[in-house]
C-alpha cells in the first residue's frame, strides 16, 4: 500500500469511502529534506486504501513552512 | 483450570462469556498483549476493557542489523476498546 498523504478537493465519496480528489498534491515527508509537494491532478481512490480523511484548515496550512518540516512518512497500516 | 466442556457451552464465544466482568488476558497482533476487566465483546471479537494494562514487546535492531535484547513497554489505561480484527486470543487470567 503506497503511503500517500494527499491533499486535494473532495469531489465525491460513497459508503465504501471511495473518494474522488481534484487538484491532488502528494506531500512526501522525509527525514533529510523538507516536505516535497508533487502535484497529481484528478484522482479516484478506492475506499479500502483510505485510512483517514481530514478537513484542511486552509489559513493554518498557509502559515506552516513545509520546507522546514522533517519527519518520517506515515507508518504503514499493519492489519 | 479443569477442562472446559460443560453441557451448556456450545461454542467458543460461550467461554468468553464466562469471563464477563472478570479479568482477561488478550494476545493481539503486533506483539502486544492486554489484560483488563472484560465488559463487552461481540462476534467480531471487538472488546471493551477497563483497568487495562497493555504490554508491547519490542526488539530494536541496530543499523548493522543485529537485534538488541527485547524490551517491553507497558501502558495502563482506564477504559479501552480493542478492534476485533487485531485479536488473536482471549483467555481468563490465572488468579
Amino acid at each position, binding site marked *: 500500500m503506497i503511503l500517500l498523504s494527499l491533499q486535494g478537493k*473532495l469531489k465525491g465519496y*460513497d459508503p465504501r469511502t471511495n473518494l474522488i480528489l481534484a*487538484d491532488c498534491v502528494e506531500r512526501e515527508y522525509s527525514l533529510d529534506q523538507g516536505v516535497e509537494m508533487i502535484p497529481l491532478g484528478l484522482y479516484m481512490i478506492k475506499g479500502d486504501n483510505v485510512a483517514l480523511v481530514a478537513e484542511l484548515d486552509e489559513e493554518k496550512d498557509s502559515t506552516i513552512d513545509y520546507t522546514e518540516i522533517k519527519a518520517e512518512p506515515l507508518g504503514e497500516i499493519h492489519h | 483450570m479443569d477442562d*472446559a466442556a460443560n453441557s451448556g*457451552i456450545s*461454542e467458543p464465544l460461550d467461554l468468553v462469556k*464466562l*469471563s464477563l466482568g472478570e479479568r482477561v488476558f488478550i494476545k493481539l497482533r503486533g506483539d502486544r498483549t492486554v489484560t483488563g476487566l472484560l465488559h463487552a465483546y461481540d*462476534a467480531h471479537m471487538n472488546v471493551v476493557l477497563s483497568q487495562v494494562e497493555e504490554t508491547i514487546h519490542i526488539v530494536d535492531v541496530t543499523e548493522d542489523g543485529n537485534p538488541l535484547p527485547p524490551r517491553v513497554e507497558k501502558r495502563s489505561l482506564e477504559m479501552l476498546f480493542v478492534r476485533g480484527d487485531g485479536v488473536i486470543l482471549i483467555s481468563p487470567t490465572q488468579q
Partner: protein
Amino acid sequence: MSGFFGFDTSLPERGGQRGPGGGQQHFSGFQASNVDETFALGGAGEEEDLAVYTWGEGGMGGGGLLEGGDELNDETFGDDLGEINNNFQFSSQPATAPPTVKGKIASTQSRYKPKPVSDPFAFSEDDFYSSRPSKKTTTAKAPSRPKPSTGQSGSVENLWNKPAVSSPAWGTAPSAMTKLTPPPSASFPSQPPAPGHIKSLEEIEAEMAQMAIPSTSTAAPTQQKVFSLEEIEKQMMEQIEPPRQATPQQPAPPREATPTQVPGLAGSGYASQQALLDSMFPELGKGPSALGGLAPAFPPGPRQEGQSQPSQPPQPSPEELARMEELHKRITSKIQSMAKYNNLMGSSDKDFITRIQLSQLATADPYTSDFYAQVFSALKRSRMIAEGQGDGPTVVQVGAGMGLGVGGPVGNRFGKMGQNTMTKLSTQVKKLVENRAQHQKITNTAALQGALGRVTRGNAAAPRPVLAIPTSNKPENRPASQLNQQTGIHRAALTKKQVMFALEELYDAILELEQMRREAPPPTAMEEIEIWHAKCQAKVDIIWRRLMVMEPLDISIPHPFISLVNPIKGQKLFPRLLRHLPHTQSITLLSLLIATYTQLDVVFRAPPPPVADASLLTKADRLDRVKREAETDSFLQFVIPGVDMIINRCGLGLVAGMLAISAQRSEVWRVAATRPGVALYTALLSKAQSLIRSPTPDPMNPQQNQQVDPAELEQWSKTFTYFLHVLLPHLNDLFPSSVAQKAAFGPGAYLIGGDAVSDREGQEMERREAEVWGFVAVLAVNAAEEDQTNLVAALREKILHTVQSSRHPNVSPARAEMKLRNVNMFLNGLGLDASMIE
C-alpha cells in the same frame, strides 16, 4: 448543509441549459474548476430530493425492451424512448445528453423518472448523508457511455450488451446480476440427438434446426432454417411473450410443463423474496414493474404449477426425456461459459440486498439492537433531571418506540437536519416499522429462505460459528445446578468454571425476568395479567432453583450458594436477585447466608487491616491484599444493602433466630473481626433495637400502641446476652488499629504507634475504626445495665488511647476530629462524652 464531514459535500447544481460544453458550475463549498467540464456531474442540489433507487433502474439499456406489463411502461420508461442504438448507458444518469434529444433536455429525470423520495433506509444520520450523494453522484460519474467500440465489435461487445438487454427475456431475476440459469426448456422445441456421441455446438444447433416436434402449443412458430444463439433467444422471448399478455395471472406458460423445466426457476426464492419485499414496501419502490412486472407473471412456489396445469399434454416417452435432459445440460454449460462475467452485482442488486438487510434491522422494539444506548441515555437523563439541569427531551424520538439518535440538545446530531427532512424520515421509519410489524404476523420465516440462503431473522446479522466443543459428561463437568441433586451427601465444592457458568445462566434469567417485568400487559386485560404473572413466577422459580439455596447445609465447603456469591460478579447480582424474590424465600436465603457466613471469602480470607508501611509486603502479598480489599468493598457495596433490606422486613423473633444461627454455627468474635461481620451484626442489632424501642405498628389496629411480643423479647435478650458474653473478651481485637499495632513488627510498630503515618492512610484507618465503634455502640444500646458497665470496662484503654491520640500534636485535625466522633458514637449511647475524659 454540512453533512458527515462537517463541510458541504453537496455537488454542483445541475444547470438548466446545459449543452455538452457545460456552463460554469458552482460548488457551495469549492471554487469551480475546469474539471467540471470534463466530469459533468449529476445534480445533487439541496432542494432536489434524493432519487430513490427504484428497483431495476440500474444499467438498463435504451429501447428495444420487449417487455410485458405495458401499462407500467410510461411511469417506468417515460415517453421519449429515442431510437434504439448501441449507446447503452451503464450509469443511471448519462453524463452528456444523448444525440437524439427532441427539444427537451434529456435529463435523467425524464428518461428514468426515479421517484424523488428521500432515502428511507438511512439507519442513522450518517448513513442518511453518506448514502445520499453516492446514489446521485458516484455512480452517475461512472464512465457514462461505452466508447463506440472501434476495432472490437466482436461478440464480447454484444455479449456485454446482450445480457443487459435480453436477461429479462430469460425470465430470471430481472437484474444485471443474472445467474444465467438455463432457459425454460418447456418452450424449446427439441429433438434429442443420438445418445452416446459428443457433439460440437454446430452439430447441436444443426440438430435443433431439424427438430420438428409437432408443437401442441399454438404460440411457438416452428422455423426450419438453422438459427444462431441470438435467434434462439429472440424465439425464446417471443414464446415467453404470449402467455404473459394473455392472462398475466395465468399460473404457468401453457406449454406442457416438461419435467426438465428447472425447478425453482420461475418461482425462484430470489423472485419470491423480492415479491415479499415489495409487498412489504409497496410505496417505497416501484418493484420490478420497471422491468415489465416479471415477478407477478411468475408466481412464487413453482410447486402449484405442476398440479394446476389445465390441459395435460401427452407425456413425452422416458428415453426422449433422457435425450432432452442431456441436450439441455450441454446447452446450459455452453451458455454458462459464455456468460461468466454476468454475475457482477448491478447497483440495483446491491440496493435490493441492502433493503433486505435493513428490513432485518428495523424493529419495533428499540431494546433488541440498541439496548445499551437507550438505557444509558435514559439513565443519563434521569440523573440530569435529578441534578436539576435536565432540559427537555434529550433522546431524539423518531417514530413511535424507535429511538434513532442519541444526545441532548447540546449533542443533538440531528440539529443540522431540516425540519421537513426530520418529519419525512420519521414517517418513513414509522411506515417501515408498522409494515414490518404486521408483516411479521402473516409470513413465516420459510418465505425468507430465498436465493440468499437461510435468512432467519434471529441471527441473520451474526455469523454462526461452526466450531462445536465436544461435551464430556464427567461428573464435575455437568452444569452445577443439576449436579447437586443427585450425588451423595457430601461433594467437592464447585469449580471456578462451574461457578462462572452458573452465574452467567443466572444473569440471563434475571435479564429475561427484568425484560418481562418491563413488558407488563395493561392493567385492564385481566387474563393477560394472569398469564404474564404465571410466566414471571415460573422464571422466578427457575432463578430460585439455580441459586441452589435449598441444597443441604453441609453438601460441600463452601456451600454452592456461597461459591456463587463469592466472586464479585456474583455479589453484583445479589441486589438484583432480591428484588424479585418473595419475602419467605429471601429469609431462607439470608438464614443460609448467615449460617455459612464464615465460608465467604470476604470473611474466611478477610484481608488484615492496611499496614502503614506497604514496603514491608512482598509484591504478591500486596496484589493479593488489593484483590481481597476489592472483594470486601464490593461485598459491602452490593451484598450488605440487600441483607439490610431483608433484615428490615423481619420481626424480632426472626432477628433473634438469625443471631442464634450465627452464634451457633460460627465463632462470633472471628466473624466480628471482619468488616462484613461487623456490618451484618450491626444490622441485626440495630434492627432488634428499633423493634424493641418503637415496635412496628400492627397494620390491623394502628392506634393501639403495639407492645413487643414478650416471648420474642425474651428470646432476643437471651440470645443477645450470650452473644455479648462470647464477644466481650475479644472486643479489643475487633479494632483494625489495635490489630495492626499488634501485627506490626520492627519499624512498622513505631510508625503505627507514633501516628506519623500519612494522613490519607490515617483517615482510611479511622473510617474502618468508625465501623467497629458503630458496632460496639449498638452493642451498648442493646445491653442491659450491668452488661454496659462490663462493656465500658472492656474498652477502657481503647477509649483512653483514642482520645489521647486525638490530642497528639502530629495528628491532623481532620483525623483527630474523626477519632473523637468515633469514640463519641459509643459514649453518647451511654450518656457519656469524650470531653469528660481529661
